[in-house]
């Protein structure tokens, strides 16, 4: 067994425990940064490892499907890397003052990373639930960081919604276990294809229930109303890592519904695609409309995150190999660019005095040149204009959809959604950088100054994604191919699981 596979979970967990010791803020910061940097390096190593074939890690040396297995394949390696890099940027941003505003920011942040990585690496449905809960409890606490009235109210909605979601998750798990007797995803992928006819309705109900749960996390229409309020109320570094959090739902749909209820699932093949496609298309449309109506830049970013989840799921709902490839590519790009925009929104809000990040005419910012360039790059990236990777991602989605019967709708809604996003971003940019009053910027308290290096780092990563689009797409196509033959992939994983223990 290759023990690197569990490092992305174990390392943040150990760091979280260490940073809980009374060390003082400086030592906490040093530990957290060092650990997250190490996590980024490990994740790059895992990307290389997964490129040579899927790795199975049997926890406690219990042979799969009986024990809990972690599975490292190209998709999970990519998501772990994404988490590490976004986490690194959010942490860098937090060091400019956010982590002093409440207690225990660093342990909670590391628990958050551990939960995210666990959810991406696990190969077991119940274990996915456990890591969901670990990630959620950390996010409940992080949302309250630097508390305020808006955060309390948003927190209650967020917690209740997710607790109800967890309940539905467990109902789905119970139904699937009752019908198939396994919760290992690879084993499920094989057993679902030969399900007894009288068990089929129960498993179908479970598949749909799980889709509701994941759609709630991914903020799919009509389950997205919590997202703009929650993300708008959260502290900026927390909002940036929450962008990854909402994509866990997207990932879970790709993983569970792509692998278990994919084309090989016999009577249950594409069990949810018929529901997923309209919901995802509507999400793209409403994400665009919401972005246009947003009154603050952070709210706008929240709607951009919703729209991007929608487009990724449109692509996944196509149910084809090309669709999966495009979904993964656009997923990676959209997370990075929206997270960067959240960090930049915080810097803009800090330098506009009382107006904050409200999209209105206000005083000029004293560093508007730097902010303007960053905003321009990130707006191009998120709206999906050439030459950045957002354009390539959207083009890949549309090319993948060419043969789909709903192609007309997909083309219309994806392009209109992009246009609405572009208009919203252009409107915000004009108000922030051009249409400002010609009086000197108000005196900004020094403690409020933000460092934009984290946002600039993520913007550079977006540009790098565009430059390296070919290799990344080639890498993503490996896991897309696995989804196309889920039965063979499940069998391969179980065989590997038995081999590693020998």
């Amino acid at each position, binding site marked *: 067994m290759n023990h690197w596979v569990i490092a992305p979970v174990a390392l943040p967990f150990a760091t979280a425990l260490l940073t809980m010791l009374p060390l003082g803020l400086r030592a906490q910061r040093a530990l957290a940064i060092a650990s997250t940097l190490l996590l980024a390096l490990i994740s790059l190593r895992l990307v290389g490892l997964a490129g040579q074939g899927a790795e199975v890690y049997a926890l406690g040396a219990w042979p799969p499907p009986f024990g809990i297995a972690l599975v490292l394949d190209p998709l999970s390696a990519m998501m772990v890397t994404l988490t590490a890099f976004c986490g690194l940027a959010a942490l860098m941003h937090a060091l400019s003052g956010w982590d002093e505003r409440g207690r225990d920011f660093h342990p909670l942040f590391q628990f958050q990373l551990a939960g995210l990585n666990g959810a991406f690496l696990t190969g077991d449905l*119940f274990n996915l639930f*456990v890591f969901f*809960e670990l990630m959620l*409890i950390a996010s*409940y606490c992080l949302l*309250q960081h630097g*508390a305020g*009235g*808006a955060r*309390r*109210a948003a*927190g*209650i*909605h967020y*917690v*209740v919604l997710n*607790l*109800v979601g*967890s*309940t539905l998750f*467990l*109902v789905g*798990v*119970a*139904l699937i*276990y*009752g019908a198939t*007797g396994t*919760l290992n995803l690879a084993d499920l992928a094989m057993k679902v294809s030969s399900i007894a006819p009288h068990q089929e309705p129960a498993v179908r109900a479970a598949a749909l229930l799980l889709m509701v749960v994941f759609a709630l996390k991914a903020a799919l229409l009509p389950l997205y109303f919590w997202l703009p309020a929650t993300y708008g109320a959260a502290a900026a570094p927390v909002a940036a890592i929450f962008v990854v959090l909402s994509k866990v739902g997207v990932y879970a749909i790709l993983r569970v519904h792509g692998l278990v209820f994919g084309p090989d699932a016999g009577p249950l093949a594409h069990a949810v695609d018929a529901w997923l496609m309209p919901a995802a298309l509507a999400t793209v449309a409403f994400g665009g409309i919401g972005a246009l109506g947003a009154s603050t830049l952070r709210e706008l970013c929240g709607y951009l995150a919703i729209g991007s989840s929608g487009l990724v799921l449109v692509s996944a709902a196509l149910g084809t190999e090309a669709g999966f490839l495009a979904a993964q590519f656009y997923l990676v790009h959209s997370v990075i660019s929206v997270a960067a925009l959240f960090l930049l929104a915080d810097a803009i809000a800090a330098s506009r005095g009382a107006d904050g990040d409200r999209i209105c005419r206000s005083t000029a910012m004293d560093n508007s040149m730097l902010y303007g360039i960053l905003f321009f790059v990130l707006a191009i990236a998120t709206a999906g204009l050439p030459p950045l990777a957002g354009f390539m991602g959207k083009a890949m989605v549309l090319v993948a959809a060419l043969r789909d019967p709903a192609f007309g709708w997909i083309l219309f809604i994806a392009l209109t959604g992009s246009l609405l996003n572009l208009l919203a971003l252009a409107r915000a940019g004009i108000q922030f950088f051009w249409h400002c009053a010609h009086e000197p910027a108000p005196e900004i308290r020094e403690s409020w100054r933000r460092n934009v290096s984290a946002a600039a780092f993520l913007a550079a990563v977006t540009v790098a994604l565009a430059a390296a689009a070919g290799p990344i797409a080639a890498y993503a196509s490996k896991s897309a191919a696995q989804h196309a033959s889920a039965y063979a992939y499940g069998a391969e994983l179980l065989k590997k699981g038995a081999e590693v223990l020998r």
Partner: protein
Amino acid sequence: MEALVASVIGILFAAGVYLVLRARTFPVALGLTFLSYGVNLMLFVAGGMVFDRPPIIGTREAYSDPLPQALVLTAIVIGFGMIAFFLALAVGAKGDLGTDHVDGREGSR
């Protein structure tokens, strides 16, 4: 027996859903508790209803599936912790916002 357990689960869920939809945080917390009881029972019987059989191989001829018991233990612990957190949050919100309405402000009547 199956019918009895199934109806108990159904009643727990119905009560839970009703209470979660209330506007005050305390009924919502009770509702979440009912929902988690319901789902725990459901997980517990997911492996099939068997009686008087230990979940250990070799002690007797027949044994019951040990996995749902492990799952339900985990689910109980997580559910309990989450509801405790929700109660703490609700008390904090009452202190900060001066109301126990779930929206953080009194709705118009």
